[in-house]
């Protein structure tokens, strides 16, 4: 009798342990929340990265951030402006609907609708056309080398579900239309959404019918946004969370000193730089010629900044100093371009004197104080370094909400900007948005008024160059011109720091996306 009971108990215990050994939950937190579950109703990279757990694109980034097949298995150019995609067979949406070419076409129709918020991300795509049930043609405006990069951010929605829920068209703020897609996500991805509560938490459960072989061992993800840095760190240390991303720089030491926790770091793709004004006058010196139009002055401004000191003091040795405008993993990067001018205040003074400003001049420096890591402190350091060589710098910092609109309206002299080349993850984005003159849809963030005909010509050529080797050479050449002419003053590559409890293995990606389908927990 007794042995029977013991046997029973041990079976029961075994069963319980079996369950707990299989249930792997990852609880994690970030300061931002998922804005909406509608993939075409936002342009935020955090929300995009979260929704990637639920939806699959036609092509996706692998563990090394290279493009690889996802819902499309192969593709080829049937004409310079037409790409043919063979779709994966046997894929099912979370509600059981089969995935076919109709879903792809309906998704693109929805994304390309004039009221869709994310339409700008695929501005060169004209339409998607069904060839047969598992073949789709995508047409672009002329030859477009970055189509695959763009497609990696286009998540495929379920046509049948959209039809049933009146969501074939995106929501529209102007007309007051909202759709069920804002709060329900039906995709083909590795996880399904179990519940979505803004600011409280979103729970995901594993999709056991996923078409791909999982590289993770999770059965459940509990995402809980925590806006306050101090609370987020406390919640990790008290055992309520397994992962925080990002971990605040000022707490890294404390976390790595705590037993059972560690900090994982990786340089991010985001480069921080200063915009140089190329307008006739500076706001700080109305009525006088803008000294920065002289190359020697711009060189002096670069030489006057002690980037090593900023790295050590402000960034706590976590950043990487740079001489170019793209990060190493991004196409267009070259080692030769990545050479900072070097800190040399004497040379800076000499250059200023040669340019006719032996007593320096006045400028304004504007920076955000809540957008980039330690942005305000970085600018405080730069302002004092410039003032030391004679450039009297009037620093003003403000919140991102007012800063960026002012930058767009050209209200600044020198100002800070960060660029991660996302979502395409290609150096062309620097050319198109930062370096090209602001006209014909180019130069959207060129707030310094830079206009260099050589750069403009190269940008337009690179935009349609389908030969990848030639295209990359053009990117490198353009970035060399930008560096040599000091079009911008690059500061550093931002660090990316996460903190995890021991036993959590989550790979980091330079694009700051969280990809938990590569996560393993013990």
């Amino acid at each position, binding site marked *: 009798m007794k042995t029977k009971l013991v046997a029973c108990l041990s079976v029961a215990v075994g069963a319980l342990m079996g369950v707990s050994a299989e249930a792997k939950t990852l609880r994690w937190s970030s300061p931002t929340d998922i*804005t*909406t579950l509608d993939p075409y109703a936002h342009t935020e990279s955090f929300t995009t990265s979260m929704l990637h757990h639920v939806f699959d694109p036609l092509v996706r980034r692998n563990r090394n951030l290279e493009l690889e097949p996802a819902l499309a298995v192969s593709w080829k150019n049937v004409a310079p402006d037409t790409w043919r995609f063979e779709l994966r067979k046997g894929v099912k949406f979370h509600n059981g609907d089969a995935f076919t070419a109709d879903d792809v076409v309906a998704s693109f129709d929805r994304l390309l609708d004039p009221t869709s918020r994310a339409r700008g991300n695929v501005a060169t795509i004209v339409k998607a056309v069904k060839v047969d049930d598992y073949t789709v043609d995508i047409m672009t405006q002329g030859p477009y080398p970055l189509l695959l990069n763009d497609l990696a951010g286009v998540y495929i929605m379920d046509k049948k579900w959209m039809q049933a829920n009146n969501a074939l068209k995106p929501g529209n703020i102007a007309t007051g239309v909202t759709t069920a897609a804002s709060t329900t996500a039906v995709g083909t991805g590795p996880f399904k959404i179990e519940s979505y509560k803004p600011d409280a938490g979103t729970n995901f459960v594993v999709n056991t019918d996923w078409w791909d072989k999982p590289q993770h061992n999770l059965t459940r993800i509990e995402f809980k946004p925590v806006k306050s840095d101090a609370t987020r760190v406390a919640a990790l240390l008290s055992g309520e969370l397994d992962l925080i991303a990002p971990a605040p720089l000022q707490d890294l030491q404390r976390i790595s000193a705590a037993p059972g926790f560690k900090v994982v770091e990786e340089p991010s793709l985001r480069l921080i730089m200063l915009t140089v004004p190329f307008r006739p006058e500076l706001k700080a010196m109305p009525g006088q010629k803008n000294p920065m139009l002289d190359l020697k002055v711009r060189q002096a401004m670069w030489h006057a900044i002690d980037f090593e000191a900023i790295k050590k003091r402000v960034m706590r040795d976590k950043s990487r100093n740079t001489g170019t405008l793209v990060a190493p993993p991004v196409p267009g990067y070259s080692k030769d371009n990545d050479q900072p001018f070097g800190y040399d205040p004497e040379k800076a003074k000499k250059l200023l004197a040669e340019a006719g400003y032996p007593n320096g001049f006045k400028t304004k420096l504007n920076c955000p104080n809540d957008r980039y890591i330690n942005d305000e402190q970085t600018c405080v350091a730069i302002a004092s370094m410039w003032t030391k060589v004679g450039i009297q710098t009037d620093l003003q910092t403000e919140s991102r909400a007012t800063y960026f609109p002012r930058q767009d309206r050209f209200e600044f002299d020198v100002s800070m900007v960060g660029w991660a080349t996302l979502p395409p993850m290609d150096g062309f984005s620097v050319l198109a948005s930062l370096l090209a003159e602001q006209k014909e849809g180019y130069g959207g963030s060129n707030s310094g008024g830079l206009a260099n005909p050589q750069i403009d010509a190269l940008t337009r050529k690179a935009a349609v160059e389908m030969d990848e080797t030639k295209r990359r050479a053009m990117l490198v050449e353009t970035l060399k011109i930008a560096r040599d002419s000091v079009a911008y003053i690059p500061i550093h590559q931002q660090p990316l720091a996460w903190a995890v409890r021991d036993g959590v293995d989550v790979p980091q990606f330079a694009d700051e996306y969280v990809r938990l389908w590569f996560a393993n927990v013990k």
Partner: protein
Amino acid sequence: MLKVLLSRLGQAALVMLVVSAVSFVMFRYVGDPVASMARENASVEEKAELRRTLGIDQPVVVQYGRFLARTLSGDLGISFRNQRPVTQLIAERLPATLELVIIATILSLSLGIPLGVLCALKPNGVAARLVQALSLIGISTPTFVTGIVLILVFAVTLGWLPSFGRGQVVELGWWSTGFLTWSGLKSLLLPGITLALYQLTLIMRLVRAEMIDVLSSDYIRFAKARGLPTRYIHFRLALRNALMPVITVTGLQIGSLIAFAIITETVFQWPGMGLLFIQAVSFVDIPVMAAYLLFVGLLFVIINTVVDILYAVVDPRLRARSA
């Protein structure tokens, strides 16, 4: 009476109009939603297009007129940030904030009144002096510091209570409550204390002052002379009279607790209206900000109107004057 009521309602409508107008003018200075809505590499044309769609390229007066017309027809608009109806967002967040405020009020009353009485009865005792000194700390420490210290002590060091969130909530129709689960109740405690602290010290000091005042009045002296039991004098006669102003102040304070729960909600990631508002501000989500400010304005107007009318009911002199 009807006249009083009507004039009060007229004033209330006027106040609401002013609140909405002032907040609308303020939105011009909080920034431009397009900066957060458009993608980073958006072209100038794209941003202009978005501005047009949202209607924020229009003069403020026109925007305000549209907003008024929409609000009067009962439509608070759609959030710029997540494209959901604002009324729905507020309805989702209201229960969290109200439950937090209820807990904070219960805590501050149930601790503030006894402590105030204690300080009034034995003003020179050790306990009273200690409570007095602590209340100074309570009234002068900023909420975010209190919150973080509580988290460090009770969540990180002791591991007794959760450091953020509402825990498990139960849905009762559209109302989500944390009162019915163990983890929900545990989660309410730290933010509740943080929010209650200022209130608690205020009530304690008020009760103490009122008690000391009442205890020195004639009828208490007569009661003592008559030889009534001390307990009866203190708690039935003195405290009851001392509580009148406390009730008024508590009522008014509930309004400010709801409006100023913002910091507590941010520290504890409490998914209430304060957190919704903070996020709306950083995104420049104008419809949500406008609706929140209107809501808070309405709340104060209602509380004040009710209090005013109650005064008129209670105090015949006020009625006579207005008639």
